[in-house]
């Protein structure tokens, strides 16, 4: 069956190591494969490696590779390709380099066995390389694509040769990309797709129209407010789920004074955790859920959603909606009349991000926190945040490793450029105990000990209101009735799980 689908953005490139972004990795997951892969429920399962175990007496992991696998051009897969792909993916020119930061050496044991040596014990390493895709060394080298393209084109940007269930049939970037099933794929074929055609459609209303007119079979995502409409129509269905992305507000902990205030210009009230807690109490998540998200979100209480490994079941309370309490807290902190400050938000990054911030600003205003809201496209948002140009900001975080350690490393640890820690901790929230615990968590093999340490961090950061976690972002996909597919929590769309009835 021919299957047509659309999404908002095209994969920028067909090179699996050039850009570390969801659209690229999601799309290339259909063509390339890694040593391990994620199943429908996000668990790690064998892919090009049939099994893996920690090395004995040394820090690192051994992967036993699948035999008899061929690339789509017919050449055989072996450990040499893995080593080559590692070198390629960890090169300076590769954007996937950070995955391999802990790796010190990769050793081929034999044609189908390979060892990844790490600096320290690294229990999460296999999880962290689920999207590490393997290229054929000969293909890459003979086509002058031994390294990812950085500021110029190479063969791998427009062509692909993986071991995956689908092969690239044609590509017109930004317009249309066609995939055909890989006849020699090693796995069990669950899909019945004979040709898959992908079209990026940037405008969400247009995309919806394309679905409703029958020109496409599936679209990812659709605007949340349209879900009801689509569901109500004959022949269409909506797939709803939770993404692993938690939306939160962050503070400029480190700033000595507010940047955008008209009344408090010599101090930063947000350095007082009472003020931060007041802000948290001012938010009415129920109303936001009902009006802006039409009941499709789950309130969040930590930086990862429930179900992610490391989620702290011991600390599931979030500050309730209580404007009176908020006002009291503000008064205690010395701001009985509140103050004004700048709130920065994106308007094209997260679902209904702008509406959310407007609603939040209005709720803040109700307790005296007069937010000067500024919204803008994401294209220069990160730059502004990096330049500390905010008093409070909106951020969404999806843990790439599906483990609670990920946000701790990026969002909670103090900024440390050398060790590459806290790189998205824009407000530089800093707590010595948290910094101390992170390396321990990273190395701890025993799950319970590890969880205890994570619980402690969650407790500290909840008490200090390091961030205000708001909710887990919903995933809303829509398709024709006759399509069966799987919605994975990382918002990846996997073609081999599609059946057209």
């Amino acid at each position, binding site marked *: 069956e021919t299957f047509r689908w659309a999404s908002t953005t095209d994969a920028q490139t067909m090179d699996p190591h050039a850009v570390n972004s969801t659209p690229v990795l999601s799309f290339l997951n259909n063509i390339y494969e890694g040593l391990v892969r994620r199943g429908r429920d996000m668990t790690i399962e064998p892919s090009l490696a049939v099994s893996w175990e920690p090395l004995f007496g040394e820090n690192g992991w051994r992967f036993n590779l699948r035999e008899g696998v061929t690339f789509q051009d017919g050449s055989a897969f072996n450990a040499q390709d893995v080593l080559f792909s590692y070198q390629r993916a960890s090169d300076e020119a590769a954007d996937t380099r950070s995955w391999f930061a802990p790796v010190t050496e990769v050793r081929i044991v034999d044609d189908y066995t390979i060892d990844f040596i790490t600096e320290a014990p690294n229990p999460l390493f296999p999880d962290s390389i689920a999207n590490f895709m393997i290229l054929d060394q000969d293909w890459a080298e003979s086509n002058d694509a031994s390294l990812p393209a950085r500021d110029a084109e190479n063969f791998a940007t427009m062509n692909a040769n993986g071991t995956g269930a689908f092969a690239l049939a044609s590509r017109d970037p930004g317009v249309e990309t066609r995939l055909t099933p890989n006849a020699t794929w090693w796995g069990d074929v669950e899909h019945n797709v004979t040709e898959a055609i992908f079209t990026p459609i940037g405008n969400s*209303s247009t995309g*919806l129209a394309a679905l409703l007119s029958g020109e496409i079979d599936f679209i990812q995502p659709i*605007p949340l*407010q*349209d879900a*009801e*409409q689509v569901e109500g129509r004959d022949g269409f269905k909506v797939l709803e789920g939770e993404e692993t992305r938690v939306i939160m507000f962050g503070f400029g902990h480190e700033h000595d004074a507010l*940047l*955008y*205030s008209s009344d408090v210009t010599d101090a930063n009230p947000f350095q007082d955790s009472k003020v931060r807690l007041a802000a948290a109490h001012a938010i*009415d998540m129920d*109303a*936001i859920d009902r*009006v*802006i998200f039409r009941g499709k979100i789950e309130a969040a209480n930590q930086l990862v959603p429930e179900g992610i490994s490391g989620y702290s079941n011991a600390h599931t309370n979030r500050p309730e909606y209580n404007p009176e309490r908020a006002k009291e807290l503000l008064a205690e902190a010395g701001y009985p009349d509140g103050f004004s400050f*700048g709130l920065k938000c994106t*308007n*094209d990054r997260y679902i209904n991000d*702008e*509406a959310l911030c*407007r*609603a939040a*600003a*209005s*709720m*803040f*205003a*109700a307790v005296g926190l*007069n*937010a*000067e*809201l*500024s*919204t*803008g*496209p994401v294209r220069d948002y990160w730059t502004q945040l990096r330049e500390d*140009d905010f008093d409070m900001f909106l951020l969404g975080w999806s843990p790439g490793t599906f483990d609670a350690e990920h946000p701790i490393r990026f969002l909670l640890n103090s900024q440390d450029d050398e060790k590459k820690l806290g790189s998205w901790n824009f407000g530089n929230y800093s707590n010595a105990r948290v910094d101390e615990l992170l390396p321990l968590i990273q190395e701890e093999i025993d799950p319970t000990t590890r969880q205890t340490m994570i619980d402690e961090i969650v407790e500290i950061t909840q008490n200090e209101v390091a961030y205000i976690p708001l909710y887990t972002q919903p995933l809303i996909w829509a398709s024709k009735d006759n399509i069966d597919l799987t919605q994975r929590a990382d918002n990846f769309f996997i073609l081999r799980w599609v059946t057209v009835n």
Partner: protein
Amino acid sequence: MLGRIWRSDGMWLFWRSPAAVLAAIVAIVIIGGALLSPWIVATSPYDLASFSLMDGLLPPLWQGGDPRFPLGTDDQGRDMIAAILFGARLSLTIGLMAMAIASVLGIGLGLAAGYFGGRFDAIVMRIADVQLALPAILTALLIDGISRGLLPPDVQQSFRVAVLTLAIALSLWVNFARTARASVFVERNKDYVQAAIMMGQHPLRVMTYHILPNILGPLLVIMTVDLASAILLEATLSFLGIGLPADSPSLGTLIRIGMQFLLSGEWWILWVPTLFLVALVVSINILGDFLRDVFNPKVR
């Protein structure tokens, strides 16, 4: 002066043209409502504390809405009437300011280019070409970017309107410049201008005191048409994400936000501001047409 206008032929023709009268009434109602919006509506859409998300997405009265909000509310719980009136106010401010800047700049350059001619004229017209080759959206991006580079962060937000206005003005001035220049070419050789030059009057005085009032007719027409264009351009820029932030409810922003609810059942969030905008733009254009006819007695 007013009396003269009142007794003029234009006024007389006006009362005899039902379309113009109707358009004027619509325009006056909209513009009046917009100007007086802070006194007409109870809750300002700028006062964040004054509306509640709990009132969000209420339909208009006749669809069973809340009597407090006759035309319903948007997704933030803002009264649509308040939103469109304040929106029209902002849109009109931007439109009028943009038009004012564009006309001063364009007429000034056009006058001077037509009057002095030669190299100055060539330079101005090539600049106009460059301007025309840059679509408005790019001009907007440019100005937006420059202002961000130059202004301290805390005032940037309040300058968004100014930035947008300037961007729109820059993409409109060429019309004025070209028209003014063409008119000056005609007017320059008329005897009254020659007489003024011959007497030794200052070029500035010749341009502004003598020529300008005589070429104002076609320029006035462009003004009305461009006022409408400016309002629409602002809407489009907002749609492309270079316009105003969502909490500054210009008509354009309202429509952009309303677009999200085109299908979801809350049709009024889109259609109330859109119809309002249509009424405004159409009436301005009709008045512009009428003005053109008045200024061009030949085609009356």
